[in-house]
């Protein structure tokens, strides 16, 4: 087994009697990009905050970088970079001032040299003296990442880092994450973008505090045992209405003129859809189940519990 950067078991937290994280086990091997999936309010942020010592867990034990995450939080903070969901650097400081502040808080040597290097890496040398608050969303996100890795952490915790960022900036962001991961950095990133989840080496899916699945993207999809059929052609939407509420159907989704229907019992599903398709003169073929289908399937199942 690979050496684990994060290895916690039975992580739990409740707020005012409501369980937000329910006994979750997470093991992140060193140098991997680990995706953290789940709907809004599923406990992703709470879990990440517990890992970096911002919230006291109600239960659970384990280690971050070999240190007890419950008792050695202060030590762990020195080796962890945490990028908050909302931009949390100081908007009334300039870009350079923010970076210098971070470097100083982490007691780094050669501060100005490192800051200049980070500015160069960001491509922000010319705007270094602009207030951080004046930056656009994409630049803020790049600044936040640069500030989080400035102290050369061993673990990077990213809480929905690319929310509200355009696709090009997102791709560049991920390119940077790959570079860092190759250099040995362990990354735990929460997201609800499917394309981002697919870029992770490994994912866990949590919904409403419970861990639903973990593994590679393929494993997480396979674990649902979902079969998916594509109904193609005009009026596919009408078929959807007819299938609504049928117990054999787990999820339906329209992609342009195509309808994707998923269910755990492939044979039953096919028997159900085939007459509908031929009646309307539509094509019917089996397609691979997407992560999104799996995502919604897990979410619905968690709701039922």
């Amino acid at each position, binding site marked *: 087994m690979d050496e684990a950067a994060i290895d916690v078991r039975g992580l739990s937290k409740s707020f005012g009697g409501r369980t937000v994280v329910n006994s979750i086990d997470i093991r992140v091997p060193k140098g991997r990009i680990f995706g953290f999936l789940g709907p809004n309010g599923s406990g992703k942020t709470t879990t990440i905050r517990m890992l970096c010592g911002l*919230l006291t867990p109600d239960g659970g034990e384990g280690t971050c970088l070999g240190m007890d995450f419950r008792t050695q939080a202060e030590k762990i903070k020195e080796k962890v970079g945490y990028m*908050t969901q909302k931009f*949390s650097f*100081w908007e009334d400081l300039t870009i350079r001032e923010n970076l210098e502040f971070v470097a100083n*808080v982490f007691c780094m040597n050669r501060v100005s040299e490192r800051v200049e290097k980070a500015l160069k890496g960001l491509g922000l040398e010319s705007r270094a003296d602009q207030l951080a608050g004046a930056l656009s969303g994409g630049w803020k996100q790049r600044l936040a990442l640069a500030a989080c890795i400035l102290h050369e952490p061993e673990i990077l915790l990213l809480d929905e880092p690319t929310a509200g960022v355009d696709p090009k900036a997102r791709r560049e962001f991920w390119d940077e994450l790959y570079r860092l991961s190759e250099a040995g950095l362990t990354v735990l990133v929460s997201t609800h973008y499917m394309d981002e989840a697919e870029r992770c080496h490994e994912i866990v899916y949590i919904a409403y505090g419970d861990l639903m699945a973990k593994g590679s993207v393929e494993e997480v999809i396979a674990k649902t045992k979902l079969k998916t059929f594509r109904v193609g052609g005009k009026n596919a939407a009408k078929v959807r209405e007819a299938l609504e509420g049928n117990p054999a159907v787990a999820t339906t989704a329209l992609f342009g003129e195509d309808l994707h229907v998923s269910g755990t019992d492939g044979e039953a599903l096919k028997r159900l859809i085939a007459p509908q398709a031929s009646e309307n003169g539509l094509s019917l073929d089996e397609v691979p189940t997407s992560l999104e289908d799996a995502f919604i399937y897990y979410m619905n199942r968690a709701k039922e519990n």
Partner: protein
Amino acid sequence: MFSRQRIKGLIKKEFIQLKRDRPTLVMIVMIPVVQLLLFGYAVNTDPKYLPASVILRDDTFLTRSIVSALERSEYFRIAGAVFSDNAGDARLRSGKDMFVITFPDGFTADVVRGKAPSVLIEADASDPTSVSGALGALQGIAESVIAKELKGPLADLAAVRPPFSFTVQKKYNPEGFTRYNIVPGLIGMVLIFTGVMMTAMALTRERERGTMENLLSMPARPFEIMVGKICPFIFIGFFQSGVILFLARFLFGIPVLGSGGVLAAALLLFITCNLLLGYLISTAAKNQTQALQMSIFVLLPSLMLTGFMFPFYGMPEWAQYLGSCIPLTYFLRIVRAVMLKGAGFADVAPNFWSLTAFVAIITLITMKAYKKTLD
């Protein structure tokens, strides 16, 4: 036209929100209650029971009768006897006493011989409002003693002219300018207002802007964060004090009679104390509005119970006890003594220890109250 329904709806919403805003509700109730209590009971511009010492060089029935008449007038609280002029001066300068009353040698004999001697009353006039009531009562006190003690064969003495009188010597501020008392106090007031308000916002602002989460995720110790927040304002405090001292010198002609070093040390302690108090508020307050409300709650008593606005000894005992729990009380004593009376460190040392204790205690409470997590 306005919609009555809409207005009603809006009013209802405000009421509901107000109902759920506990701190505001508490303030709404507490401010008038506290103000009324303080103004009604604690504030007294005709203060009584002012501390006084007696130098008794002639111990007879007459001098003792005068002393007890002074006490009976309720204006003077005779704390005890001192035996030298120097000791009396020291007590005045350090603010332990507001009066020193001296009966000269052979006072009673001189009265009997019709020489009309006088009792010397030295008054600390740096706070003119405090002493004026007591000084005004002296004439009446003299008359009552004469009527009571000079009877029988001595009755004739009273007939011609007053057989003895009080000579008042106002010290430190002979003209009785109120501003002599107010201006040094103003330094304290300005420092406590800006100090507490500024730092009360320190952490709440971080919390409201979402930057607190970032700060907490970094390996900065609570004490380090506190020092970082406080330091800039120490400089600001000194700057403000400098401005006031400069204006006091050139607009009002109030110099610093005592040691500049002692004054600077007192300023440093007091400024730190205020900033810590504000910082403590900001660890407890949820948002900036709450921080502001809590600051005002702290500032009101400083305005009224410390001797800044109204004479400290004019307050009833319980209010004086409350006032003793406020740092400004001690700072005012130091700054007035040093500026107006030329006091040195030894004269005001006890006030220094009190301020030091405040700094230590507030720091401890703050470190306890500071939350290292977002729980």
